[in-house]
């Protein structure tokens, strides 16, 4: 399209040139613009030169528009728009410049961009090549902080529900801070006053400077990784300038704090600026000293609490026993109970007699039952000795009676069994057979019963045994079948 346009334009120009030649006939003039015309690339080169001369490193304020991140090349192309929406300027950020932007570009963000505009010869398109960009209104680091904070918050790293309670009595306190810093000194001083026996493990880490984030992350990981290395952590630094807090706003540090398997107290020593690490920690302390105060209760408070607990226990129980004794004394002095001890003694004798009678009436008492009886008896004696309540005594007697009843039922059952066995034995007795009308026949002078008629002859004398009594008879005839 543009090629054809260019061709047409050239033809029109050529015709005009020839007309001019014809009318003026001056060879120098005749050659005119054809001799002086610049190529497109020359024009563009000249434009770019003018732009460099007049608009080099110009600051432009505008809203980011049409932002789609970086291209595959790593370069980034988008537009800047006036807030009013009246003007648009294409911009490009080369990969090496783009990487240096500390915050994340996003659609609609009002920015200040520094760069030089130029025309890209291939397309004849004007764009601003940006070498530096910063948010308008707030600093780039501040924006980066806000953006990271929003992103981590969206991931839930700061959720209140994620906060874990600190152990009441930490067996090992892990500390992540500089070995020679004021923070460590403050922590140790406070711990020494509160809980002199504290077991503290310091994992030294720089808390400022370029190496700080890596060292802090390493220490946090170590305490998370090694079981029992610590059951609570203090990550701390003393006060410093805002830039010094950078390590505690570092994404890796914040993530390591949030991911710690051990509860973390974070004390960065800034009342006004809350670092992201502090937001991710389970507990935030204003200063390292306060972190040490939060990490363990005062030893003497522990001791006081335990002593108070034991004292309260003793007072309660002593009061309870005093009341019970008082109650007993009142009961014992009641007129109706004047005869009580005698009654109890007699009852005990009776119950003993009854128990031993019960005992001796059976050859074997199941051990469970006998121990029960002796236990019953012991409690009778115990209660008597302690001037027990009549009601309890009655209960004991009832229990004894129930035990005796159960024993009696057992014995009856045993007896019934034995009866059945005796019945079976009886059924097998010869006398029992005879009772059903059978008789036993023996030959005179023999003891073996006759079971075959062939053994008998007419005229033999036999003895006949019946269920009751016996008879002597003579055989009249025999029949062998």
């Amino acid at each position, binding site marked *: 399209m543009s090629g054809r346009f260019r061709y047409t334009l050239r033809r029109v120009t050529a015709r005009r040139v020839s007309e001019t030649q014809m009318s003026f006939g001056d060879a120098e003039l005749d050659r005119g613009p054809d001799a002086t015309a610049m190529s497109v690339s020359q024009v563009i080169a000249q434009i770019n030169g003018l732009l460099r001369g007049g608009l080099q490193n110009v600051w432009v304020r505008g809203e980011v528009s049409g932002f789609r991140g970086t291209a595959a090349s790593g370069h980034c192309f988008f537009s800047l728009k006036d807030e009013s929406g009246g003007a648009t300027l294409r911009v490009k950020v080369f990969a090496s410049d783009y990487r240096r932007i500390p915050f994340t570009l996003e659609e609609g963000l009002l920015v200040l961009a520094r760069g030089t505009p130029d025309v890209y010869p291939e397309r004849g398109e004007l764009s601003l090549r940006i070498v530096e960009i910063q948010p308008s209104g707030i600093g780039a680091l501040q924006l980066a902080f806000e953006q990271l904070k929003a992103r981590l918050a969206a991931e839930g790293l700061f959720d209140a529900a994620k906060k874990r309670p600190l152990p009441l009595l930490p067996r090992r306190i892990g500390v992540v801070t500089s070995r020679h810093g004021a923070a460590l000194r403050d922590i*140790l001083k406070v711990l020494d006053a509160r809980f002199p026996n504290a*077991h503290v493990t310091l994992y*030294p880490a720089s808390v400022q400077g370029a190496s700080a984030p890596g060292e802090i992350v390493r220490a946090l990981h170590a305490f998370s990784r090694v079981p029992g290395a610590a059951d609570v952590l203090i990550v701390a630094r003393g006060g410093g300038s805002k830039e010094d807090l950078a390590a505690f706003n570092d994404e890796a540090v914040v993530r390591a704090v949030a991911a710690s398997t051990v509860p973390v107290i974070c004390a960065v020593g800034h009342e006004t600026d809350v670092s992201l690490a502090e937001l991710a920690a389970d507990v935030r302390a204003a200063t390292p000293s306060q972190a040490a105060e939060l990490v363990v209760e005062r030893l003497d408070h522990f001791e006081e609490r335990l002593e108070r607990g034991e004292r309260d226990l003793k007072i309660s129980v002593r009061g309870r026993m005093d009341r019970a004794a008082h109650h007993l004394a009142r009961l014992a002095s009641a007129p109706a109970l004047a005869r009580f001890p005698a009654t109890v003694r007699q009852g005990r004798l009776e119950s003993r007699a009854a128990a031993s009678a019960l005992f001796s009436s059976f050859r074997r008492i199941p051990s469970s039952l006998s121990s029960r009886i002796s236990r019953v008896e012991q409690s009778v004696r115990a209660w008597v000795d302690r001037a027990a309540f009549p009601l309890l005594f009655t209960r004991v007697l009832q229990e004894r009676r129930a035990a005796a009843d159960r024993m009696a039922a057992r014995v009856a059952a045993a007896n019934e069994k034995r009866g059945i066995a005796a019945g079976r034995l009886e059924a097998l007795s010869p006398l029992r057979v005879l009772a059903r009308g059978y008789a036993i026949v023996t030959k005179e002078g023999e003891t073996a019963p006759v079971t075959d008629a062939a053994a008998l002859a007419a005229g033999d004398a036999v003895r006949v045994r019946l269920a009751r009594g016996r008879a002597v008879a003579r055989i009249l005839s025999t029949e062998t079948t």
Partner: protein
Amino acid sequence: MSKTKALPKNLSFEKALERLQEIVAELENPEKGLEESLVLFEEGISLSRFCRSRIDEIQKRVEVVLKETPDALVTEPLDDELDEDALDGEERER
């Protein structure tokens, strides 16, 4: 005179202290029977002893990590005196 309940095996210090306070509160209830009170009392005393033993188990140590092994942190005692030199060092660092 009464059966003492054994303390749970993996009882935590927090739980023990909490239960001790619960027992103290329970014993203040006049409705509790004598027998039950004695059982609670004994449980309370053993909880208190348990807590004391846990406190006594902790031994004062301040150590610094020298290096890591796969399953431990190698430490040495920290020079307790954070003397003037150390502080000067810190000031210089700033």
